[in-house]
């Protein structure tokens, strides 16, 4: 298929772009296979480049012969384009609609994007399961890396290599897989170095109505427990069910989110949307569950198994947040990338399904749900409470959110490791991490307040402590000038301090040198 078939009018002059808190721009609108571009063709005037995959919904309005389209994006931005001419407006709208809903992965922009930067480190190879296992081996010898899933048949959503208890053989794993939803048998999620306790995750057990048992499953779980030690199983679903008892059980556990964030689409104000959606309630519940899991591990000295229904949504929210709380390494830029790779991408969170649409979409939700955004929001809540304990700043979280929904990079394409391998993503696309892990980007994303904090950080989950994530939900709805200035001022204070420290240190060195070289100096005193 050629993109040209979908583009009825590739270019329109005299288009006016309206964005909140920004001056309007008049220019030429161009449609390409992947972008909507507005250029004023003036020097130093800003251009708009919008990926079609970022567009969530599009509306047309007509006043006389002037047409307007309102473009609502997955990053929650809303812009308006005034297009002279009815026909042009119609054509642009229908082209954008078609291009933004194109569901053919191999036609996505990452396959066409060529990096304009030097790749220092290929992100596709930065966080391989075998490397993560090597780190584990330095701490314990009770686990092994199993390739039982090497052709992704035992569990299609798992990566080919998973960490399992050493004493459990592959045959047992195959049997356990039949007892767990989608074949997601319990695998290692996190090893707590401090006391050797572990966090495992899995799909729900298929006990059925007559309480079927599986002795291999029991054997596997028991293998993770030390003699005489207790463990906990945290089922993430009960929370969801309780909070929406009115909704029917079953189906996707993430259904609750979809329903709630979409319930109020007609409201213009996004903030109302967030309020009406009980978003903050979800934040509080997920964070509470993660704290509970972390507490079992760190305080009770107990191992934990986390599962929901399929084990690809709220399970991952809980296991990844618990790691943020417990493991200081996950609070670094690189550690966080590793966490997203391990606990989300390799763990089989279906990004392609979940991020196909966002809050503004009018179509009926199928498998979309802002599960990952909810996770990022929870991380931001912890970051707000421990502003000096994270190596990355809020902008890193916003960046990851943006790229999960629409990106030139291949990282978040597909639903599982198997799908990504089938699409040859590592060969054909660039990894987001290749771009992030360069000095100039890292500098921009680093939190100037960061001081390594090796402690477990326990966030507060009281409603008073949980705030609206303005950086995402109000990003396009407010002028952030004053807050940006405050941030700059903060950076300035810290940098000036560092500069002085360096000056003092270098003077001190000079002085020491002078003293050794010239003992006379002292006698001069």
């Amino acid at each position, binding site marked *: 298929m050629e993109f040209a078939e979908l583009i009825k009018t590739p270019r329109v002059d005299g288009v006016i772009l309206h964005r909140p808190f920004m001056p309007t721009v008049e220019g030429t609108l161009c449609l390409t296979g992947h972008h909507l571009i507005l250029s004023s063709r003036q020097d130093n005037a800003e251009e708009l480049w919008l990926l079609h995959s970022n567009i969530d919904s599009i509306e047309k309005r007509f006043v006389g012969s002037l047409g307007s389209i309102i473009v609502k994006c997955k990053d929650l931005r809303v812009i308006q384009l005034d297009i002279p001419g009815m026909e042009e407006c119609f054509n642009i709208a229908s082209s954008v609609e078609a291009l933004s809903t194109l569901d053919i992965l191999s036609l996505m922009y990452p396959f066409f994007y060529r990096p304009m930067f030097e790749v220092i480190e290929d992100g596709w190879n930065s966080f391989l399961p075998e490397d993560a296992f090597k780190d584990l081996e330095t701490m314990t010898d009770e686990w092994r890396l199993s390739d039982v899933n090497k052709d992704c048949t035992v569990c299609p959503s798992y990566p080919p290599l998973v960490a399992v208890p050493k004493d459990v053989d592959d045959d047992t794993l195959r049997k356990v897989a039949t007892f767990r939803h989608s074949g997601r048998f319990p695998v290692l999620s996190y090893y707590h170095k401090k006391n050797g306790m572990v966090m495992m995750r899995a799909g729900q057990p298929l006990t059925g109505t007559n309480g079927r048992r599986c002795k291999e499953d029991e054997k596997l779980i028991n293998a993770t*427990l030390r003699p005489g030690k207790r463990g906990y199983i945290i089922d993430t679903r*009960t929370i969801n069910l309780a909070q929406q008892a009115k909704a029917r059980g079953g189906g996707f556990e993430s259904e609750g989110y979809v329903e709630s964030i979409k319930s109020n689409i007609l409201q213009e104000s996004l903030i109302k949307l967030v309020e009406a959606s009980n978003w903050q309630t979800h934040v509080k519940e997920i964070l509470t569950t993660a704290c509970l899991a972390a507490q079992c591990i760190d305080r009770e000295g107990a191992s934990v198994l986390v599962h929901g229904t399929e084990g690809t949504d709220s399970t991952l929210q809980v296991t990844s947040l618990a790691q943020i709380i417990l493991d200081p390494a996950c609070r670094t830029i690189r550690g966080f990338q590793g966490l997203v790779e391990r606990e989300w991408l390799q763990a089989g969170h279906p990004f392609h399904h979940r991020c196909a649409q966002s809050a503004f979409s009018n179509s009926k939700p199928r498998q979309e749900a802002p599960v990952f955004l909810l996770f990022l929001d929870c991380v931001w809540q912890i970051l707000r409470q421990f502003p000096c304990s994270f190596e990355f700043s809020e902008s890193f979280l916003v960046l990851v959110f943006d790229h999960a929904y629409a990106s030139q990079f291949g990282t978040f394409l597909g639903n599982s490791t198997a799908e990504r391998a089938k699409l040859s993503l590592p060969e054909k696309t660039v990894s987001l991490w290749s771009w992030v892990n360069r000095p100039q980007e890292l500098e921009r994303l680093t939190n100037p307040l960061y001081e390594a904090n090796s402690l477990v950080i326990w966030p507060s989950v*009281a409603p008073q402590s949980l705030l609206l994530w303005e950086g995402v939900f109000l990003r396009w709805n407010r002028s952030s000038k004053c807050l940006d200035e405050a941030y700059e001022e903060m950076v300035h204070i810290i940098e000036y301090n560092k500069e002085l420290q360096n000056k003092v240190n270098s003077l*001190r060195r000079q002085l020491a040198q002078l003293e050794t070289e010239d003992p006379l100096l002292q006698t001069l005193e």
Partner: protein
Amino acid sequence: MEHIRLPKVENVRLLDRVSPRRSRVGTLYLTATHTIFVENEAGVRPLWIDILVCSVEKQAATASGCSLLVRCKNFQVLHFVVPRERECHDVHLSLQRLSQPERCEELYCFSYKPNVDEAERRQEWDFLDLKADYSRMGLPNSLWKFSPVNQHYKVSDTYPADLFVPQSATPPVIVGSSKFRSRGRFPTLSYYSKENHAAICRSSQPLSGFSARCLEDEQMLEAILRSNPRSDFMYVVDTRPKLNAIANRAAGKGYENEDNYSNIKFQFIGIENIHVMRNSQQKMLEVCELRSPSMSDFLEGLESSGWLKHIKAVLDAGIFIAKAVAEEGVSVLVHCSDGWDRTAQVCSVASVLLDPHYRTLRGLMVLIEKDWVSFGHKFSHRCNHLVGDPKEVSPAIDQFLESVWQLMEQFPCAFEFNARFLITIHSHVYSCQYGNFIGNNQRERVELRLRERTHSLWSYLWKNQTDYINPLYRPDHSQTQGLLRPSTAPYCFKSWRGLYNRFDPGMHPRQSVEDYLSAIQEETQQLEEQLASHKQVEKAVSFDRSPTAWALGSDLGLANTPQDYTGCFVTSSPCQPKAPDGSLVLLTQDSNLSNGSDQESGIADVSCRSPLSEDSTRDPDSDEAAYSAA
């Protein structure tokens, strides 16, 4: 002392608000000014409760003792369990009596005697000079004059003695106008902009009824208009809801008729009355006090309290006036009913928006002294200093301080002071430790001879200013200059947990960016000094590491231990209630399972059933969070 039936009770338990199973046992002491709880465990600092007790509630006796719920005016809530009913009864009656003194002389400020000699104490009161602030505005000048008309409080007994009025306002006009205004509170100057001559004036409502007129009052407004030569009209802002103002007409009061006054534009700005505000704050506090609210309990409760809506109304009114003055160059006369609550709020908020000076430490103090203290905000009644009519109590000053805080959230670099400054002022408005906020007006304060007998808060705050400096403030910053233009979209208003949940340390960020930056700035200052001295070679040899400069890192690394962040609201005042040490919440399985939503999180005990151990929470290297509150 005669009110204390029982000065000391032993074996009293102080329950933790968040997890009631956790409690501390100690001895409760009652003194004339303070309630002190000394924990039995050695080495724990005693807990001081100021005279701020607002209400005491005795609950039904149980097997373990008799419960006493003490609410303080600084929003601290303490839950004591006294072993014996009889003792509890005595403590209850004593506290109740102590919290509602009948005579002014009982107030703490008359017995508060810090180690300061008399000359110094006198100087404290000279620290702020309102006349200096008027001359900072450029007054008196050819348009505005100082008027001695209210010397000895003869014209209006609730107004200050020193006032500024339009140059053309003669004493007969002033006196005539005052007779046509509630409580004789005639239009007078609150703020004057020397850039464009526009002014904010304030008064009480006119006694216009359905048709009454007063020539002098009309001349008075005419005089105000003429004192702004570039403008051909002025605004008259009635800060009440229109309905309330109309109701007042039936009582012979009301509002200005545009037809009777030349060139005025009349405007209602609906801020609710003190009774609505009192109830709203009460509801909001109930929500903040909920033991383990769900997100929707909290958000819906906050919404239905209407508190933030009222804050928005105050701010909106301030913005209207500030814009009229700065952007249109038009003078404004503001009034409500008596002109000492809403009018004080609106004039002072407008001043903060207009003039960068009022966004400095000294400026805010002057502003409160001027628009609140001197113009007769009835602190004694509104803050319930003495036993009195509970219907007179209202959080007008709380709302002003919160409005300033909401602005600080939007303009982090524009204010010289931090939130701690506002919270400390709030505490002392209610504490009665200083003489500043005693009495209802200047005349009463003169009669009480407060300047002779008590200490002033302002110089205390000034001496401790390092605690109150906002590290992001820079006088030359663009954000610091000129008129502030805040957004009042509903989502811009946040719940001020720093004030209303001040004593729930678990709810606050575990690391404070502000404290971090302040420490860095202090270090920077020392480095600058070192560099300067370095450049003089002779000093360089004896160069030594400054102790604080290099200890910084370790301090901040521990910022998430309990002690550090409870300390952030403790001021150096000896009588400031100390946040309880180590009061972070422990999470036990019991507390989880005792409450519905946590049961739903579905912990299944896989191998054995021993309860979770409690001692793990005493682990010193890490703190426990309040997520048991879920």
